[in-house]
C-alpha cells in the first residue's frame, strides 16, 4: 500500500488534456473546432482513466484518435502567443524570476528521486520504489507550475490555455511515442527480432572477426532504425550475432562489445523517425516546417559516432 502513486499524475495529466479539449470546444474561432476538441477529450480519457478502462476499449479509443488524425480533423489555431513588444515589456519586468520555475522542476525531481523512497507515513511507504523517479518528476512539474503561476500572477485557466497552445503544436506527435512502444510490443510478441538476427547471421560471413564486429554494430544501428529503440535491438542482436560470433567464436570481451554495441544502436536512434519522442516531437515543438529537420541535423553526428564505435570495438574487443 502506498499513498502517492503514478495514477494520481495520470489523472492530473488527463485533467489538463480535458481542460485543453474543453477550451477548444468553447472557441468558436478554432479552425478545426470539433475534431480537435474530440481528439484532446478522447486522449484525456485514455491517459487519465486508462488503468480503469478495459484494454479493448482503450485500443478502440486509440483507433478513433488515429482516424481523427488520418482524416485531418485535428488542427491548431494560427498565430503565435502574444505581441513581441508586450512580451519584451513583461520580460523586462519579471527578469530572471521567469527562469526559476524551469530549474525548480529538475531540482525537485532529483531531490525527490533520491529521498522519496525512504519516506514513510505510519507503516505506509509514501511512494513505491519502482515509481520514485516518475513520481518525483511529477511533483517537480507541480512545484514548477505553482511557482510559475505565483511569479506571473496568472491562474490555472491561462496555464492550461498556454499549455494547450503548445500541445496543439505537437498534435498527433504527442501520441506517437506511446504508439511506437505498442508497435514494439506487438513485434516482440510476433517474434520479429529473432527473424532479423537469423537473417543477418545467414547472409553475412560472420566467421571473419571484422565482419562480425561490422555486422553486430551495423545490425544494432539498423535494427534500432527499424524499431526506434536501441533497448529493443540490444537483446536480439546480442543473442543473435554478438554473443555467438564475437564472444564465443573469437573470444571477444563482452563488456567492450555490449557497451559499444548499445552506443552503436543510439546512432540508429538519431536518424530514425521511429524514435519519435527524440526526433519528430522536438521538430514540432520547435515549430520547424520540416518534420525531418532534426534527423537531418543529426545524420553527420550519427555517422561519425558510429564509425568511431566500430573502430574502438574492433581494436579493443579482441585484445585479450
Amino acid at each position: 500500500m502506498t499513498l502517492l502513486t503514478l495514477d494520481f499524475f495520470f489523472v492530473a495529466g488527463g485533467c489538463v488534456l480535458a481542460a485543453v479539449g474543453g477550451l477548444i470546444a468553447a472557441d468558436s474561432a478554432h479552425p478545426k473546432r470539433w475534431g480537435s476538441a474530440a481528439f484532446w477529450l478522447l486522449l484525456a480519457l485514455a491517459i487519465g482513466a486508462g488503468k480503469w478502462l478495459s484494454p479493448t476499449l482503450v485500443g478502440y479509443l486509440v483507433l478513433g484518435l488515429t482516424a481523427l488524425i488520418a482524416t485531418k480533423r485535428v488542427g491548431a489555431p494560427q498565430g503565435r502567443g502574444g505581441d513581441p513588444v508586450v512580451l519584451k515589456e513583461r520580460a523586462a519586468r519579471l527578469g530572471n524570476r521567469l527562469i526559476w520555475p524551469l530549474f525548480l522542476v529538475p531540482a525537485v525531481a532529483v531531490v525527490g528521486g533520491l529521498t522519496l523512497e525512504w519516506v514513510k507515513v505510519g507503516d505506509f511507504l509514501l511512494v513505491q520504489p519502482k515509481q520514485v523517479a516518475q513520481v518525483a518528476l511529477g511533483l517537480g512539474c507541480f512545484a514548477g507550475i505553482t511557482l510559475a503561476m505565483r511569479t506571473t500572477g496568472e491562474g490555472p485557466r491561462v496555464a492550461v490555455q498556454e499549455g494547450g497552445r503548445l500541445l496543439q503544436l505537437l498534435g498527433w506527435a504527442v501520441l506517437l511515442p506511446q504508439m511506437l512502444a505498442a508497435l514494439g510490443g506487438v513485434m516482440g510478441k510476433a517474434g520479429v527480432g529473432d527473424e532479423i538476427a537469423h537473417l543477418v547471421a545467414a547472409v553475412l560471413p560472420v566467421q571473419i572477426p571484422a565482419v562480425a564486429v561490422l555486422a553486430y554494430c551495423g545490425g544494432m544501428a539498423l535494427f534500432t532504425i527499424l524499431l526506434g529503440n536501441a533497448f529493443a535491438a540490444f537483446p536480439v542482436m546480442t543473442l543473435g550475432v554478438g554473443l555467438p560470433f564475437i564472444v564465443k567464436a573469437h573470444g571477444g570481451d563482452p563488456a567492450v562489445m555490449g557497451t559499444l554495441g548499445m552506443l552503436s544502436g543510439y546512432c540508429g536512434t538519431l536518424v530514425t523517425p521511429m524514435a519519435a519522442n527524440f526526433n519528430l516531437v522536438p521538430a514540432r515543438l520547435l515549430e520547424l516546417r520540416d518534420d525531418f529537420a532534426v534527423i537531418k541535423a543529426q545524420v553527420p553526428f550519427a555517422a561519425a559516432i558510429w564509425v568511431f564505435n566500430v573502430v574502438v570495438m574492433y581494436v579493443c574487443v579482441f585484445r585479450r
Partner: protein
Amino acid sequence: MIKLIGLAVVAVGFAFRMNPLLVVVVAGLVTGLVAGLSWHEVVTMMGQFFVDNRWLTLPVILMVPVVGLLERHGLQERMATLIRRAAGATAGRVLWIYQILRGLTSMVGMGIGGHASMVRPLIVPMAEGATATKLGGVTDQARAQIRAHGAAAENVGNFFSDDIVVAVGAVLLIKAFFDNAGVEVPLGEIKLWGLPTALCVIAIGWWRYRRLDARLARAAAKPATEREVKGPKP
C-alpha cells in the same frame, strides 16, 4: 519472413511521407494479424501497451503549462537578453556548452534537460539571441538550422554519456542481459567502456557546431537583398 511485413509497412509509409501515427498503427495491426492474432486480440493488445506506456507522454503533458505560461510572460525574450550580454557567444558555442552540460547530467544518471523543458524555453532563445547580436538578425532559414541543431544537442548530450558514473538505465540493462545469458561481466567495465565515445562525442560536437556557426556567418554575409532580415522572433 511474413512476420517482417510490419517493418515493410513502416518503411513504405515513411518513404511516402504518410502520417507517422497512421503508419505505426497500421503496422502494428498488420504485424499482429499475420502473427495469427484475431482483430479483437490485436486491438486489445495495442490498448494494453498504450496504457502500460502512458508514462512516456506524461512529462510532456505536465510540463507544457509551465513552459507556456512563462513564454507568455516573455521567457524567450529574457533568455535572448541574457545571452546578448555575453561577449563572444555564438549559436554554436551555446549549443556545444549545452551538449556538454547535458552529457554531464546524463553521466550521473539524471534526466535534467529535455526538448520541452530546456531546449525550447532556454537553449534555442539563447542561441538565436546570440546569432541576432553577432550577425545582426536571424533569418527564417538560420532559425530552422539553429533549432534543428538545438534538438540534436539535447539528444546527443543525452544519449552518449549514459550512466558512466552512476548506473541507472542502459548500463543496468546490459548487465542484466549478460547475467541472464550466463556471461559474467563486471558493472565497472561496462561503465568504463562508455567513456571513449562520450569524449569523442564532445569533439564531434565541437566540429558540427563550428560548421553551423560558419554556415550562419556565410549566409549573413550575403547582400541583404538576397535574404529576408528580421529581428529575433518572439
